[in-house]
């Protein structure tokens, strides 16, 4: 476990708890249909979250320093795939499912391991066309298939 990470999450959850407590005060207290309004539950939970994150912060003080074995982490691959996934989400509607999925898969396959272009192209196109035709044509689901001009 990482001390820094736990400290940061402790503070983040503290703020989230605080936010819920403050914000639930501005929820209308009208208790229509119930003798307790819609603000009680989130406010109580917010307070509990506050207390728990304070407890977590105290616990991080007691951590002994643990030497974590450093393994080579492949952040570059992750960043490329993550960014292409974000772009995939962004272009899914304008560009249509088939093209955007094909591009996303091609980029990620090549990021995971370079080379073997033919098999990656085949798998990517098989998946994107296959899913689209099976879902939209065969099952009659609605999916933006291709860009609309």
């Amino acid at each position: 476990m990482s001390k820094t990470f736990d400290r940061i999450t402790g503070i983040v959850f503290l703020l989230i708890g605080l936010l819920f407590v403050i914000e639930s005060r501005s929820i209308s207290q009208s208790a229509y249909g119930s003798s307790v309004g819609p603000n009680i539950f989130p406010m109580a939970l917010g307070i509990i979250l506050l207390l728990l994150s304070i407890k977590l912060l105290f616990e991080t003080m007691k951590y002994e320093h643990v030497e974590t074995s450093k393994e080579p982490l492949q952040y570059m691959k992750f960043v490329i795939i993550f960014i292409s996934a974000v772009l995939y989400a962004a272009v899914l509607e304008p560009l249509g499912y088939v093209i955007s999925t094909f591009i996303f898969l091609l980029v990620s396959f090549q990021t995971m391991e370079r080379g073997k272009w033919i098999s990656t192209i085949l798998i990517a196109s098989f998946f994107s066309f296959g899913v689209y035709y099976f879902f939209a044509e065969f099952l009659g689901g609605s999916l933006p298939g291709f860009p609309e001009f």
Partner: protein
Amino acid sequence: MTTLDFLFNGFAVAFQWQNILFAFVGVLIGTAVGVLPGIGPMSGVALLIPVTATLTSGMPTEAAAASSIILLAGVYYGAMYGGSTTSILLNTPGESSSVVTTLDGYQMARQGRAGAALSIAAIGSFVAGIISLIGLVLLAEPLSNVALKFGPAEYFSLMLLGLAAVSGLAGKSMTKALIMTVFGLLLATIGIDAVSGIARFTYNFPILYSGLEFLTIAVGLFALGEVFKTIIERDKEDGAIAKIERVLPTKQDLKDSAKPIVRGSLLGFFIGVLPGAGATLASFFSYIAEKKFSKHPEKFGTGAIEGVAGPESANNAASGGAMIPLLTLGIPGSGTTAILMGALIMYNIQPGPLLFEDHPEVAWGLIASMFIGNLMLLVLNMPLVKVFAKIIQTPKKYLLPIIVAISFFGVYAVQYTTFDLYLLLACGVFGYLLAKNDYPLAPLVLALVLGPMIENNMRRALTISNGDFSIFVMKPMSLVFIIAAVAWLIIPLILKLKGRNVIINDEE
């Protein structure tokens, strides 16, 4: 109608051709999910919810719910079968409930008895599946009759007990588990309040009015989180896969493992019924128990077949037992059953005591299909064990991006919004970071599913009592649940203070 009549009707549902097909696809995918390291039953079920939702979209609601829950439950118990395969052949468990199987299973494989170990695991799982189903049939009716007498106060306390049990046993730090639980409950309050119709924490974003979609969060946290983890921390390339020569076990093997299978099934079933304790704990306890019962405890760890038969039966029985609180009380006891419950709620079917009265087709159809599914698994696993062993070799470079693409497709096909895709990606990152730092994810998902029900029951109870909170301790059943919930959280703390090691349940 008697239980037998209901069961008979259940079989009528389960034998409809599309449901046989669904059960078959479910157990097949489940076995694959169990075999593939990296995808556990939880992310497997979460990933398939959108797929089943689209497959069943043309059917009437109740039939659609029955068919999809049949498929999803098939994935759940199929994964328990498949999990043993990698443990035995590769010494890497496919999911956490098969960790103890590696101890003796891999040793057996090294001695050339891989086939015997695999088939004993399959036979044990089958027997366990049937035993836990009989238990389910026998207990379903009486339990739901008891639960029918519950009022909102009892329900509120019972759900608290469920949450406490899962948080108390999940992960290394209870503080972290509780934080995740409370955070899940808070996330569940976002959206329009069902009782008063007031929008909470939506900040005028129309997309938030219906609340955060449970499916998106579950797929993101579990499936994508796992994918990101594998990309970043790429596991070392797997070692050589043991060869399978003879598939059938010898007579001596069968004789040695008969008793462990029965013991493991019974133990696993009762552990499975308890909320919070799941398949992982069940297999662990069964291993310890077999070692105690054995006349040659020194053989354990060197390839004793009892060490495979017991735990593998126990984890499968536990997954059957876990269906009991879900179906009869409407309280999931583990992450995977929480996801199954979310799937049922998506079809507007509320698990709980009324399920057996209002939707007998769904409840009994599911139970009957589990009989069929277990039989299919046995038939599939014995001859096809070599084929499943091949699945292990699926290259990760193709598998991981395709899982991302399936998650995208699933979420978009159900939600039709790009917002959910961004939420999905964000949950994936959080899922990776949180799981890496020992923040258990199962309590969060459980809380997200139970949140609205806990709040509504609390407010209904308080309406009855005119805002007096003592109603929760004045009702005897409710008081019992609350005491049990508190005990579940405090006893591990006391044990820890005394310096005892507390067994915890891994994510499953």
